[in-house]
C-alpha cells in the first residue's frame, strides 16, 4: 500500500509545473524533488526519451527496494529460471563454484548478503544474476572456461549487476511506465501481482537484458573484484575473447548476444577504461589446474 501511494505521489509530482520543484518541503521528499531531472535542469537531461524516464526513476529514488524486497524478487526470478534449467547434479561442482563466487563477492561492498551460485543444465553460453545475491552460470559457458580466474571473472561480472542493483533500476523504470494504467486500474496492489508486474512471466526478465551501460559497468566491476580477490584480473577478458570466437548465428549464444553488447565492443570499452590502471596488480593468479572439470 505504501508502495502504491508513493508511486501515485510520483505521478502527481511529475505532473506538477516545473517551478514547483524549488519548494523545500522539508526532509527527504524535498531533496528528492530537488534532484528530479525536470525543474532546475530542465531540458538538459531529457534529450532522449528513454534516458529521461530512467533518469527520473533514478533521481526520484522514490522506491528504493528494501534488502528484504530485493531478495524476495531475486528468489522469485531464480526459482523460475531453475524451472527452465535445473542445477547440474554434481555437488562438488556446485560447492566449488560457491566457494569462488563467495570469495569474489566478499571483495564487494555487499559482502553482507547471503550469496548463491549455481551451474545450470543448459548448453547455451550465458550467465544470469538476480537481485539479492543470486548468480547462475550455464554449463555451456562453464565448459569454455580455462582457469579459476576466468570463472571468477564471469561470476564477478554478475556480482557487479547485483551490487549496482541494475535489475531493480530497470524494474523501477518499467513501474513508472506502467504505473498510470496499472495503479489506477488495480486500485490496490495484491502482494503477488505486484511482484509479478515487476518480473513478468516466469524467467522472462532474464531474456530482457539490461542496458548497454549496465553491461559495461558490470565488466569494469568484474575485472576489479577479480583483481581484489587475488586473481588474474584479465580472466573476464579471456572469456570475452573466447565468446567472440563463437559465430554470432550460433544458437548457443543467441540469447547472450541479444541481451549483451557484442564481445568486441565490450573489449574495446574495457580497453578504454583499464589503460594502465591495473598494471600494479599484474601478479594475480590464474589457477588453471584448480579449475573444477565437468564430469
Amino acid at each position, binding site marked *: 500500500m505504501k508502495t502504491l501511494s508513493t508511486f501515485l505521489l510520483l505521478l502527481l509530482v511529475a505532473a506538477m509545473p516545473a517551478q514547483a520543484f524549488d519548494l523545500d518541503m522539508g526532509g527527504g521528499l524535498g531533496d528528492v524533488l530537488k534532484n528530479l531531472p525536470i525543474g532546475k535542469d530542465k531540458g538538459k537531461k531529457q534529450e532522449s526519451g528513454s534516458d529521461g524516464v530512467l533518469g527520473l526513476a533514478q533521481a526520484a529514488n522514490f522506491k528504493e527496494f528494501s534488502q528484504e524486497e530485493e531478495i524476495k524478487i531475486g528468489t522469485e526470478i531464480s526459482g523460475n529460471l531453475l524451472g*527452465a534449467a535445473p542445477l547440474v547434479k554434481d555437488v562438488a561442482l556446485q560447492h566449488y563454484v560457491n566457494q569462488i563466487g*563467495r570469495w569474489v563477492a566478499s571483495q564487494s561492498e555487499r559482502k553482507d548478503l547471503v550469496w548463491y551460485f549455481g551451474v545450470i543444465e543448459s*548448453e547455451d553460453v550465458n550467465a544470469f544474476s538476480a537481485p539479492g545475491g543470486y548468480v547462475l552460470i550455464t554449463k555451456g559457458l562453464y565448459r569454455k572456461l580455462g582457469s579459476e580466474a576466468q570463472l571468477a571473472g564471469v561470476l564477478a561480472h554478475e556480482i557487479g549487476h547485483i551490487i549496482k542493483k541494475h535489475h531493480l533500476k530497470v524494474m523501477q523504470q518499467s513501474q513508472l511506465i506502467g504505473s498510470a494504467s496499472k495503479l489506477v486500474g488495480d486500485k490496490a496492489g495484491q502482494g503477488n501481482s505486484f511482484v509479478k508486474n515487476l518480473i513478468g512471466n516466469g524467467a*522472462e526478465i532474464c*531474456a530482457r537484458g539490461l542496458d548497454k551501460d549496465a553491461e559495461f559497468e558490470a565488466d569494469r566491476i568484474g575485472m576489479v573484484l577479480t583483481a581484489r580477490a587475488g586473481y588474474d584480473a584479465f580472466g573476464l577478458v579471456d572469456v570475452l575473447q573466447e565468446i567472440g570466437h563463437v559465430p*554470432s548465428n550460433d544458437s548457443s549464444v543467441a540469447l547472450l548476444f541479444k541481451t549483451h553488447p557484442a564481445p568486441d565492443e565490450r573489449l574495446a570499452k574495457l580497453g578504454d577504461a583499464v589503460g594502465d590502471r591495473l598494471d600494479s596488480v599484474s601478479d594475480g*593468479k590464474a589457477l588453471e589446474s584448480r579449475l573444477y572439470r565437468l564430469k
Partner: protein
Amino acid sequence: MKINQKTLWLTFGLLISISISTATQAGETGTVIRADNLKAESSGSAASTDKISPGDQVEIIDRQGAWFKVKLRQTTGWLRLLSVKRGEATKAQGSATDVLKLATGQAGTGQVTAVAGIRGLSEEELKGAKFNPQELGLLKSNSVSAENAQQFASAAGLQVRQVEYLPAPISPEPTKPQGGLGR
C-alpha cells in the same frame, strides 16, 4: 527421431570443436583493436619500439598477466591484452578436421555427455518457466560462508589486493563494434 539425434550430435560436436580449436594460444594470430605502442618489455614504462594501429595482424607468442608477447613485422615485443583480439578479424570457425576428430572420438569423450540434457534458453522457454522450489532449495543448500570461501582462497595462495573501481571511460562518440560480430 534418430535423424534428429544425429543432427544434435553434429551441432554440439561442432560447438565443442570450436572450443577446442580456440583453446590453443601459442602461434595464434591476433588482430590489433586499438592504437597502442609495442613495448620492449611487459611494462607500461618500458621503451616503445613500434606503433600499432587497429587492423594490424600480430602473432601471439605468449601471455603474461596483462600483456601479450607478440611478433609484429619481424619485431618481437609486448602489447597490452586489451589492445589485441585473438584470432583474425573474419575467420571462419570450426573445420572439417575438428568434426572428424570428434566423430572418431579423438576430441575427448568427457565433453559429450551433456547432449542428453540439452535445454535451450530461448525467450519463450524462459517466459514459460515454472517456479521450481526443489531446485531453489538445492541452490540455497549449496551456499558457503564467507569464512569457508576465504579458507579455500588462502589454500591457493590468493591474497586480497586494494584496487579502486574503474571509472567509466569518456567517449565522445559511441563505440562501434569491430569485426564481424554484429548483432
